[in-house]
């Protein structure tokens, strides 16, 4: 690969600017995993079909396998490593442990980032496929959570625990 197909990219990840020299074809997912050693974000399909690579980009959930790293420049990326406040786990992280919302743990970082983004979407009044009334803030019942979290596959089948964990945090 010739030099003009590589370049320095500044990625702002978990509040920190990181300069990394990348092949222009690198996805954000591969930049995180292979270059920044932030391996919490997982590769499950590399095609936006499973949600394991979900991160927050400017606060919104995104499949990092479908984003070129160069396109993430200037944006605020939050990965699972950035959810906790120092040693203090994010309430969703605590709830996932308490409700056994995972088994193998491979989809878990994506589930967590997705849940954080999802709760923000609900707070912003974003409707889903199962929202009955589009004119008011959605009522986050179990069907809403299931629908909104269906982009994150879990082959171990930990959905019941994931639901209980999100339910607990959403209900405060």
């Amino acid at each position, binding site marked *: *690969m010739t030099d003009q197909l590589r370049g320095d990219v500044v990625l702002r990840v978990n509040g920190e600017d990181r300069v990394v020299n990348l*092949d222009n*074809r*690198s996805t954000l997912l*591969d930049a995180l*995993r292979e270059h920044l*050693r*932030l*391996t*919490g*974000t*997982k*590769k*499950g*399909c*590399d*095609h936006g*079909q*499973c949600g*394991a690579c979900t991160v927050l980009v400017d606060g919104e959930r995104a499949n990092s396998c479908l984003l070129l790293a160069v396109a993430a420049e200037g944006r605020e990326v939050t*990965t*699972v*490593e950035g*959810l*906790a406040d120092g040693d203090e*786990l994010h309430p969703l*992280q605590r709830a*996932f*442990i*308490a409700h*056994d919302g*995972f*088994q*193998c*743990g*491979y*989809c*878990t*970082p994506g589930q*967590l980032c997705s849940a954080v983004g999802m709760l923000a979407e609900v707070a912003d009044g974003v409707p889903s496929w199962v929202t009955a009334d589009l004119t008011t803030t959605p009522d986050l019942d*179990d*069907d809403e*959570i*299931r*629908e909104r*979290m*269906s*982009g*994150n*596959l*879990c*082959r*171990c*089948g*930990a*959905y*019941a*625990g*994931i*639901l209980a964990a999100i339910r607990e945090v959403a209900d405060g």
Partner: protein
Amino acid sequence: MTAGSGLSRLEGRDKVTGAARYAYEYPVEDVLYVCPVGATVASGTVTEVDGTAALADPEVVAVVDHTNAPRLLPAVTADELVFQSPSVAYRGQPVAAVVATTLEAAQEGAAQVLVRYVEHPHRVALDPDDPDLEQPETTNAGFPGTSVKGDVDAALADADVVVDHVYTTPPQHNNPMETVAIIARWDGDRLLLHDSNQGPWAAATGFGMLWGIPPEQVSVVTEHVGGGFGSKVWPTAGAVVASVAARVTGRPCKLMLTRQQMFTMAPARTATRSHLRLGARRDGTMTAIDHDTLQYSSVIHEFVEQTGSATRTMYASDNLRIRHRLARLNLPTPRVMRAPGKTPGMFAVESAMDELAYALGLDPLELRLRNEPSTDPASGLPFDGRHLVDCLQVGADKFGWTARDPTPAARRRGRWLFGTGLASAMYPVYQQGGKATARAEPDGTFHVSVAAVDIGTGARTALWQEAASVLGVRSVVIHIGRSAYGRSSLAGGSAGTASWGGAVRKACAELRRLLAEHGGAVPRDGLEVTADTAADQLPPDKARHSYGAHFCAVRVDADTGQVRVDRLLGVFAHGHALNARTAHSQLLGGMVMGVSMALHEQTVIDPRLGLFVNHDLAQYHIATHADIRGLEAHSLERADDDVTLVGGKGIGELGIVGSAAAVANAVFHATGVRVRDLPITLERVRAA
């Protein structure tokens, strides 16, 4: 601290913070990336692998194929013998690999490799009239291919009622969320692996066989695994490619199969066809059970799914015949997927039992109670705890089964038709011998090591509990995930935790005795005991199984045929669980996979191309969060607490067995449409 108290997972914090490290995630200096190239014909011979275009990229280090790969020795299946000949046995079989300094260059290079073939005719259709069907002597897990008791044909001719139907299940892919992932390095004749597998000792053994070195010369580290479900029990073709690339280049090589490659470079479950004939007297006594099964294997290796094996033990009948036939197709060698044999076979048996209940005008629960055997129907052995009736009765009570009106297609509200169904579950008890080491340090800490692996089962936590319970202290560090800890069981056959736990218990008990001999004082060099349970295994004097019962409520859209599972309740008898919390999650996970199998999962084969058409997660559908509601798993207490070395029986596979039949039986009750071919798609529900 007591075993079974439901302690949360020891690695929980690591898994929710992203700190848990999976095989592909270890930083290795000077590492190369490997991307395999799969065959684009279903049968043929490679005449040329042209890597010129790929090698023009200075980031590409090597193109490996059958002309420059080192020789491998036969191991577990022929699929692992990658790059050993120009023969192509199935589409997607690895024919080359590109090794590069970046992932992007390896992937681009793989797309540029030009492979030429002479193409041969191929066969990929599972056809009961195939003249070349084989009748294997034995199946996977050592069951007889054919077993006959009494005179089935005469009994069927004399029966008052006969049901005679064919049930099919499609090829299914395990699809763990983490694909096959490995980092391979050679240090002289030692092979060092970070590998995603279902048993580091099995990986060391499998790779050792391939490379002609003892397992002790293969160092496998497997700290965390992103699911397996059978696909990572033995080295896969994909994983072997990485070890070959490392040998050829002399550098560390990392490989992670793409989701698409997982469909051919890692194993799957065979398609199955079950021809079931059940005969009964008018009073519901079954007089004949005939289960004729068909499955496929590849043309390069014999693997026989034990589809009829559950039928040997489920229901009483004086006349019982179970047959396995095998087609050899141009497809990857299928191997185990969660509850091999039991899962597809019990879909057939439990569907047919529902049909027989309707034919007799009997409640399907009552039919099962009337045919409860006193000894194992095929072998005549006594049961070591048989609690199927308990599971059925407790489940019926919890579910509210007794109020059910059996009339099909009689409950409609708006567009929705409602129905309920039940099915039984069973899974055999397996236990393997192996080693564990317990060590006491002068500072009061204990270290317990066993070559176990936690693929999500909760094994790490359960083993810590077992060690802490036997030693009577909390200051225990559990070490798993390394082949260096010695010969050990797989996470397979639902035997992992019982097998490892037995060795851990033995080592800890012996260490405790040794400590007592030292008056409780630990010498400066510590005290260490290695125990081996090879001689402590279950004698073949009894029929040992876990049992369960599924009760399912569905709604079916009368217009579209869409099936929604509203409720799936399982009651299970597996005896003592080392950790009730993670055991519960295992049972739920099996049931989710059962719903997934019932409604979604099928790998579609294009007969012209010999291609798994839907080879990704957008097209191979698995249950999503929105598919799962109303899930309940209950475990019977105080049953079979003294079977394996740690007490209870296996849990990991039990939850999937029978669950798809419970869904199909509920769909019949809702709609009057009997779907005998999985998955239960809209068009199959609407076909009637």
